[in-house]
């Protein structure tokens, strides 16, 4: 047989068609939704505060209450519930049809064990356990929480990411991981197809009974429309974009800013902001060491920081960022404008220099812990250092990985002994609505979060929070707390960013959540 150029070309084209067939078939598979999500190394949402783990937990587990799009707690696994007149005894009844993925029924005892495990580590859970006289199941579907003293809105506390697990799982200590991944949520974890670090697969839970109310935030009907949802961990952004463009994946949770313009210019792709109010960028200082143990130095920081400058770096497109000034974030019922007028505009170098001089600052070295393996954190640290230097502060970056940073920030000593003055982190804006649950609000030195601030006046006000009953009372208390907060300056905001997601146009009905966490129910693929 003679091989001519024509037969050779025909063979090459035929081989190309055969090899391309699998990817074409994959793109036409309407039953599975493929998403590029962050890596999940730990699957237990009580064990870690990682957002990726929370994303996983929302697919697999269900919650007693859930926040709707307006941050109002709504019953989820709970059917009927009631509170005694003195708000010290709450009775919760689980709704019909709840079952675990192993087909056993969800019981009140499971829920009690889950609350107790969560309460070992989560601040608002710790508050609940501290004030609870008893948490007990009275029958298979009913449990009662009896309090020594009122803790304000208990449903607010229960609407935290508090995921219900089977009793045998929830009996493990909070420092030991639950690895069974058996929940009662709309999707089941497919352990056989999952490859930790690479791919996580969820199958529709056919037994799941959604609520009748329409979906809103994390609340309402959770309808698993896709038969299977596959989360891919594609670490390289160029590869992720190429996979999205080629239709190999339908959704990319966190595209990098460099590629926003490419995504927006594509006919088939959409850039969405789904995560509520986004993330607040926070500078935390060390209150135990000079010079920022001096309140005038901290106030000088507020004059120095021009949030617009940080936004131009962190979120150049104004759709994806905005300034934040209220202690309680931008989107909560307690956000207010008390005591922010003096620093709101920022960038007042002269006023900052004056306060620095008044503080008696003598040029001591100031160390900023710089997480170089977290790109945005690194960029923000560098700009922050240059801002300090411009005001005559002897600022120095200490480059390190986030893991090293997280160890070093535990050092309470002076910088000469491996201590620190600043590090930058982010908090979900919606977390800032709750001074009992967010570690930044604690100001009792030893028990406070890294930096260890102490302000007794603020702590007295914070102690009143659980005992306030109405929203109006809380709003008044929030204004008073904010007045003290900005006089004392426990943090400095750099800006607020809302990381957008990218998707193919054929993926629709994605839930817009009040937090950066993603919900995977309801979404579906359409022809097009």
């Amino acid at each position, binding site marked *: 047989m003679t091989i001519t150029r024509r037969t050779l070309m025909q063979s090459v084209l035929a081989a*190309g*068609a*055969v*090899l*391309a*067939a*699998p*990817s*074409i078939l*994959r793109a036409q598979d309407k039953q599975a939704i493929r998403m590029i999500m962050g*890596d999940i*190394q*730990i*699957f237990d949402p009580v*064990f*870690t*505060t*990682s957002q990726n*783990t929370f994303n996983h937990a929302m697919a697999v587990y269900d919650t007693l209450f859930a926040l709707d799009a307006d941050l109002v707690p709504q019953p989820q696994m709970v059917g009927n519930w009631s509170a005694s007149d003195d708000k010290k005894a709450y009775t919760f009844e689980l709704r019909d049809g709840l079952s675990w993925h192993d087909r056993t029924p969800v019981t009140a005892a499971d829920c009690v064990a889950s609350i107790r495990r969560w309460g070992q*580590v989560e*601040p608002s859970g710790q508050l609940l356990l501290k004030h609870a006289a008893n948490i007990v199941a009275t029958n298979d579907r009913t449990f009662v929480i009896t309090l020594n003293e009122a803790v304000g809105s208990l449903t607010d506390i229960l609407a935290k990411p508090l995921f219900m697990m089977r009793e045998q799982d929830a009996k493990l*200590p*909070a*420092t*030991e*991981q639950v*690895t069974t991944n058996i929940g009662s949520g709309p999707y089941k974890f497919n352990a056989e197809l999952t*490859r*930790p*670090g*690479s*791919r996580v697969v969820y199958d529709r839970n056919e037994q799941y009974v959604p609520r009748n109310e329409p979906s809103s935030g994390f609340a309402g009907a959770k309808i698993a429309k896709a038969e299977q949802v596959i989360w*891919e961990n*594609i*670490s*390289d952004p*160029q*590869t992720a974009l*190429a*996979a999205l*463009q*080629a239709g*190999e994946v339908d959704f990319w949770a966190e595209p990098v800013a460099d590629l926003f313009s490419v995504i927006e210019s594509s006919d088939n792709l959409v850039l969405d902001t789904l995560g509520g109010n986004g993330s607040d960028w926070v500078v935390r200082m060390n209150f135990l060491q000079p010079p920022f143990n001096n309140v005038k130095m901290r106030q000088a920081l507020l004059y120095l920081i021009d949030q617009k400058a940080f936004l131009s770096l962190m979120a150049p497109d104004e759709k994806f960022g905005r300034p934040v000034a209220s202690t309680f974030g931008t989107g909560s019922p307690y956000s207010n404008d008390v005591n922010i007028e003096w620093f709101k505009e920022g960038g007042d170098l002269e006023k900052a220099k004056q306060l620095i001089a008044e503080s008696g600052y003598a040029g001591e070295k100031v160390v900023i812990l710089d997480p170089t*393996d977290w790109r945005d954190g690194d960029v923000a640290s560098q700009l922050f250092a240059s801002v300090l230097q411009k005001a005559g502060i002897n600022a120095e970056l200490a480059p*390190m*990985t*986030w*893991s*090293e940073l*997280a*160890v070093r920030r*535990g050092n309470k000593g002076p910088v000469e002994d491996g201590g620190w003055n600043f590090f930058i*982190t*982010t*908090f979900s804006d919606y977390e800032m609505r709750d001074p009992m649950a967010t*570690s930044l609000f604690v100001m009792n030195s030893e028990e406070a*979060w*890294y930096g260890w601030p102490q302000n007794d006046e603020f702590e007295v006000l914070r102690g009143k929070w659980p005992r306030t009953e109405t929203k109006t009372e809380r709003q008044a208390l929030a204004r008073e707390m904010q007045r003290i907060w900005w006089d004392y300056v426990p943090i400095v905001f750099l800006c607020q960013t809302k990381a957008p997601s990218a998707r193919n146009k054929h993926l629709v009905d994605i839930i817009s959540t009040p937090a950066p966490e993603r919900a995977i129910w309801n979404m579906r693929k359409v022809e097009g």
Partner: protein
Amino acid sequence: MASYIYRRLFSAIAVMAMVGIFIFLLVRLAPGDPAVVMAGRNATEQIVNGIREHLGLNQPLPVQFIHWLSAMLHGDFGTSIFSGRPVFELLAQRLAPTVSLSVLTLALSVSVGVFFGILAAWRDGGFVDRLLTVFSAFGYSVPVFVIGYFLVYVLAISVAWLPVQGYAPMDEGVGDWFAHLILPTVALSLPFIAFVARVTRASMLEVLSEDYMRTAAAKGASSCAMLFHHALRNAGVPILTVIGISFAYLIGGVVLTETVFNIPGVGRLVVDAINNRDYPIIQSVLILTSGLYVLINLAVDLTYTLIDPRIRY
């Protein structure tokens, strides 16, 4: 020969023992703390300390070393700190993509590289030789990820002949498996093809100028017989050495290629483990890789005797 093999195996065990101690110390003394990574960015000190205590990371280093060594000697690679699953199981899941990519890359690199090298030597100084020299310089100097992105753009996005990323197991269809591996294999092979081609060319040129090659030509041997029967066999030892050495470079290349093409192989497993300070995975992969490298070099040494009967141990 047998005594040589025994000596080499004994020295391999000694090398592995030293590698084991070095790896343990390197991993443990590097900055970072898995408990911190596990707890999350905004975790409290109390949570981090609880996890550290639970994992036994507060124990003195010698105690941790003895625990690890004892488990390794019993064939127990330990459990991943993060996923809580046996390291052996995680490695087994990741082995097939990496072995597939490595084997295809070696096969392509050796076959094409040796062929190009022979061709260049045969046409020494001519157009083909100069063309292959340019190709070698290109293949050797352009990074894997640049080639990778280029191939993806042309063959996966523009004409959509091949998948952009990922891996399909062979049991789901050989066509799909092969389709997913074409681009990463080509991207990873280019520098190796260039390397093998350069060494083959140099080695062949040396052999082709030998007296016995002139004798073979005088006796009327065909070009094919001269090149492949007489010359290649005598030029084989340096080529084989280069292939052995290439294995170490291949490991580094595989890590990068697996990242660019999102292949869930051992390379990505170990990169993730290093980022997370997942000690059991890092230690196990490094020990296995070192052991494999030692064994491959032993195999290369032994193969010399097959190529060149004058070599005796």
